[in-house]
């Protein structure tokens, strides 16, 4: 270590000239600025939409369906001649699954690409990061993910008049199925989730209804991200005497936990109900690990209705027959179509017009059926499905079997200053 034959370089560096650096900075400055040259909008110009998706980073797995849903919808809108004679143009930004990058990308899309509105962000943290940006720039954000619901204290990440929520929240995703699960399997719940807001709030909301129905929470644990080993948790679950494991782990921890839960031979003794694992994650789990578990969402690829059949046909034509869709991708799809309808309705491409137009808009062709954006709190009214993972499934078509469903579930009002 002490002998450092390249020390000379370091030494010279400290002492001397970096004039070249200044030039580099200048060049970089110009390259930064070049795309920002102001363009004037005209009637024939496209309507620009900034889409922020997790294309790289920890949640890349969800990123594909996420951006694909929006792209498919935009193709359909443009094929039908666009809106007000203008086509949609997507400008994609990679969030890298990092809230910090969302701030950068949202600003880039708004300030430099001059998009008319934004869609996307994936996790609640990403959405929250975008909150102040869309508030100060006064742009609309269409948010697709199932999430914890809106509480005033998290403004401007929620309860924001510039945000529209296209995914389900717990009173839609969980409440409708609690009675069935309790009657069938028992009243004792063990809650396990990743340690952040979505699992915690989801559990809190679930608990409220559960207690009303006479249920009981016999254990509640939150797991830090990237936990490799689950011995003590599995032991606690076994000791708790629970009937149902209510599961809100996400990311790779979902897989880690489920692999070890299955390996411990606990599948036969408990019923597991997850509100996180859509087609992509369940595919990742594989049939042995996922079989027999319960899942609830607003959308599954396997739900049977004409809308979905037609939707999947178009989706597969564009993205290949093995491409996966999920609740988030479908929410992005709905978001694009509903934004187009809103613009058509108001005849104007502006934030105010889009906000007014989206309120109480109905979309007949949602892959999950007819859906409606509630004007009061910008929360989507959606169906809710409870599914069981089939034993020995071979693909998304036979992955889930339907247990029960509700075509249209009104969520509780958002805990915000209403109307937004």
């Amino acid at each position, binding site marked *: 270590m*002490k002998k450092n034959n390249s020390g000379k370089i370091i030494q010279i560096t400290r002492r*001397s000239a970096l004039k070249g650096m*200044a030039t580099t900075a200048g060049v970089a400055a110009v390259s930064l600025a070049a795309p920002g040259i102001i363009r004037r909008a005209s009637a024939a110009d496209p309507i620009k939409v900034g889409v922020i998706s997790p294309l790289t980073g920890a949640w890349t797995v969800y990123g594909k369906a996420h951006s694909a849903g929006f792209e498919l919808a935009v193709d359909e809108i443009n094929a039908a001649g666009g809106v007000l004679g203008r086509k949609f143009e997507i400008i994609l930004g990679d969030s890298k699954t990092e809230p910090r990058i969302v701030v950068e990308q949202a600003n880039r899309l708004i*300030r430099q690409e001059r998009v008319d509105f934004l869609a996307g962000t994936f996790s609640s*943290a990403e959405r*929250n990061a975008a909150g102040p940006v869309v508030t100060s720039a006064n742009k609309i954000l269409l948010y697709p993910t199932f999430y914890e619901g809106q509480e005033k204290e998290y403004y401007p990440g929620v309860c924001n008049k510039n945000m529209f929520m296209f995914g389900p929240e717990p009173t839609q995703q969980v409440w409708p199925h609690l009675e069935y699960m309790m009657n069938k399997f028992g009243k004792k719940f063990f809650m396990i989730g990743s340690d952040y807001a979505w699992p915690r709030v989801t559990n809190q909301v679930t608990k409220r209804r559960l207690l009303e129905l006479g249920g009981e929470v016999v254990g509640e644990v939150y797991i830090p991200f990237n936990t490799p080993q689950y011995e003590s948790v599995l032991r606690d679950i076994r000791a708790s005497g629970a009937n149902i494991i209510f599961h809100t782990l996400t990311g790779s921890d979902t897989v880690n936990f489920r692999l070890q839960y299955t390996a411990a031979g606990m599948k036969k003794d408990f019923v597991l109900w997850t509100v996180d694992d859509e087609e992509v994650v369940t595919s990742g789990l594989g049939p042995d690990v996922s079989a027999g578990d319960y899942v609830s969402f607003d959308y599954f690829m396997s739900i049977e209705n004409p809308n979905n059949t037609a939707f999947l046909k178009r989706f597969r034509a564009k993205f290949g027959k093995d491409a996966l869709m999920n609740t988030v991708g479908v929410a992005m799809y709905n978001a694009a179509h509903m934004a187009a309808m809103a613009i058509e309705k108001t005849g104007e491409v502006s934030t105010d017009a889009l906000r007014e137009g989206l309120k109480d808009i109905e979309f007949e062709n949602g892959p999950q059926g007819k859906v409606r954006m509630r004007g009061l709190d910008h929360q989507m009214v959606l169906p809710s499905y409870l599914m069981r993972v089939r034993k020995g499934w071979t693909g998304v078509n036979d992955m889930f079997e339907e247990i029960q469903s509700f075509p249209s579930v009104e969520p509780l009002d958002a805990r915000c200053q209403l109307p937004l």
Partner: protein
Amino acid sequence: MKQRTLKHRSLLGTTPGDLLFSEPGAALIVFAILALLPVFFSGYMIYILPQYMLFGVLAMSLGLLWGFAGLVSFGQAGFFALGAYTMGLSMKSGGGIIDPAYLGLLLSLVVGGILAAAVGYFLFSAGVRGTYFVLVTLALSIMLEQIAVSQSQITGGWNGMFIDRMSLNLGPFGKISLFDDAPMYYVILPAVAIIYVILYTITVTRFGKILNGIRENEDRLISLGFNASLYKTGVFAISGAVACFAGALYGTHANFVAPSLAGVLFSTEVVVWVAIGGRGSLLGVLLGGILVASFSNYLSAITPEYWQLVLGLLFVAVLLYFRGGVAGAVAQLVNARRAK
């Protein structure tokens, strides 16, 4: 002392040419260019550049440690995030008798400095050196991230925390809003320049020279009677304070902070900036932070996978072939030119 013609540079006066070709001269040009940019440009670039400049400051906080004292920290992002959280909490608290933003900035210096000093003293006084120090700082940033996640009632947990944009409180003369890009730019730019000047000054003072001694040969320095662990604690404290302060400004600029800002991946990104920029030169490091971060932003939209790969390869190449980084290479070129 015999009267002789001596070649040592310290015995010769500096000529104007020397100034132009010295690091401060180059820094003057860089800051002048940065100061003029908002005159010619507006929009996203003027919005985002202050953020990258703060990344540059974060890089300088590591550059001081690594390039001058020979200590590598894989935990600088932890201090950066700590600063952002400090700012956020201070803005929420309303500040009491002093302006909350100023309180946040002040506290960030204190909190970052004290945490680094405590950790540094704890380790250095027991002779924990180089490689172990890296591992501890790595663990430190993981711990800070986990604390930010788990103390959700204070930090907002994994969902993050909102931070208002600060305004410039001029006391009796009122307040200047920093909501728009240009005013914010002209607050952050001088802050960055001042930090640069302070850090540069540190490197040429007695303290800075002793740091060089630690980097070159800590045992020799101890044998000369220097309390090396105290100097190392000192430089780590300065570095922590600077990173934390930059984080506070970043927080109020981005309006948001989440735990992943403290994470290992971001921490090590800083190491990459510094290596590429050239750890021996604070200006090189500053520009390394600004340029690599901005290229990351632009190129990642075009080729997200390959850009990271290129960055990784560049990092290895710098370690193997250009230990002085870009700044070192530029300096070599300039010196070669001048020698002719």
